[in-house]
């Protein structure tokens, strides 16, 4: 009799155990409830058993605060390192030597666009008219240099006009801030594209820098943005675009100037080795007269 009731008790307990084990493995809320209940009953006992002296609590709290601060600083460092790595691995940085810098101040100019201050200066080898890039593409050019900082004229500022090639064909154009001569209202934050020669831009065309002598102020081939709208043909609607002969459009910049953080300043390298002439195919034999 005793044996039988014992067996029944064991069976019941075993069934409950197995059920709870399965429930826990399946992530059922029942197991969580059991955990919470156990902690609620046992917690006060444990706290009384291990009653920590007050000064130790204060010490641990202070240490906790300090460690929390250290952890936050570490996380910030890691985030910045990853941004720097993204910049160094990015397309604009490829093939160039660059000085990494951080935006430490930004000013909104009265006529639109903005200029930013970087924490790198002439001590770091930065010269006026160096190109500034971010992971996404072109940011702007350096306009003034101090020993420890430099000011950058961001694309879209008044007076920042960049010679560009548009699309796969590489038609020449310029990109600048929206101007009064535009007959189309452009959204804030976009750039105005105007062709130098008759050309036909298409929405979605990539706009890259044309490049200048010694890569200053703008190195060649950097992504400036994407064409997002094309103005009506001026030859078809002369009344709407008086004084314009070529097409124009709207460009969305590749880099958002509002979220600039880690940027790179391209350091121009003087070319010391002259270019060697490239061999070409032999000319076809010409018919003798």
């Amino acid at each position, binding site marked *: 009799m005793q044996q039988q009731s014992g067996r029944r008790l*064991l069976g019941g*307990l*075993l069934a409950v*155990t197995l059920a709870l084990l399965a*429930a826990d493995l399946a992530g059922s809320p029942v197991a969580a409830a059991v955990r919470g209940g156990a*902690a609620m009953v046992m917690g006060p006992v444990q706290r009384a058993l291990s009653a920590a002296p007050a000064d130790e609590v204060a010490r641990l709290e202070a240490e906790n605060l300090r460690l929390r601060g250290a952890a936050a600083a570490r996380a910030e460092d890691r985030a910045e390192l990853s941004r720097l790595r993204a910049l160094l691995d990015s397309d604009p940085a490829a093939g160039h030597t660059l000085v990494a810098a951080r935006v430490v101040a930004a000013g909104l100019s009265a006529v639109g666009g903005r200029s930013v201050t970087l924490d790198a200066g002439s001590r770091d080898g930065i010269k006026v008219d160096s190109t500034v890039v971010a992971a996404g593409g072109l940011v702007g050019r350096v306009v003034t240099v101090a020993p420890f900082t430099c000011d950058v004229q961001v694309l879209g500022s008044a007076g920042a006009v960049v010679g560009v090639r548009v699309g796969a064909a590489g038609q020449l154009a310029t990109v600048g801030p929206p101007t009064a001569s535009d007959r189309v209202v452009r959204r804030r934050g976009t750039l105005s594209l105007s062709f130098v020669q008759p050309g036909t831009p298409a929405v979605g065309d990539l706009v890259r820098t044309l490049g200048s002598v010694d890569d200053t102020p703008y190195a060649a081939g950097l992504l400036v943005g994407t064409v997002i709208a094309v103005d009506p043909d001026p030859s078809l609607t002369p009344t709407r675009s008086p004084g314009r002969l070529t097409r124009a459009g709207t460009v969305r910049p590749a880099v958002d100037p509002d979220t600039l953080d880690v940027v790179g300043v391209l350091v121009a390298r003087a070319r010391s080795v002259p270019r060697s002439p490239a061999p070409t195919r032999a000319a076809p034999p010409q018919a003798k007269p």
Partner: protein
Amino acid sequence: MRPTTLGLARAAYLVVAALLTATLLPRLGVPGDWMPDLVLIGVVSTAVLRGPQHGAIVGLTAGWLVELVPPVGSPLGLTALVTMLAGAVAGTFRSPSSRAALRPSAALLAATVVVEAGRLGSAALAEGSVAPTERLGVLVTTVVVGLVALPALLSADRALVRRRLG
């Protein structure tokens, strides 16, 4: 079924042992690798007197106790099953008459081996690798503490039974 003094004493011992192991001893500086399994000693002391079935019941209950004293074990119930097995194994060492001093200790050694094997097995399943020598300290301290504690617990148990309180 009225709770007996013996049953209450056993339950009290198990609760105190579980709390000691989880809370007080680590604070007193006993390292985790040398923590004697006090709860298991209590289970074995019952099992060697009552046999495998009783040992299994007490082991299962004690395992749940260990599991529910925070930090609550995960997955819930695994420790209970392993301790139940250990209690049953210890119960097979029961001898009706003999008072051989080594028998309870041998039962304790077997039960500890079962518990540690279960722990290693679940660790191998969960983490993919185990260090069997790490738990050797627990085995040694549990058996050494058991050499002292088991005779005391057994004589207390027998004394309560003799006075018809069990």
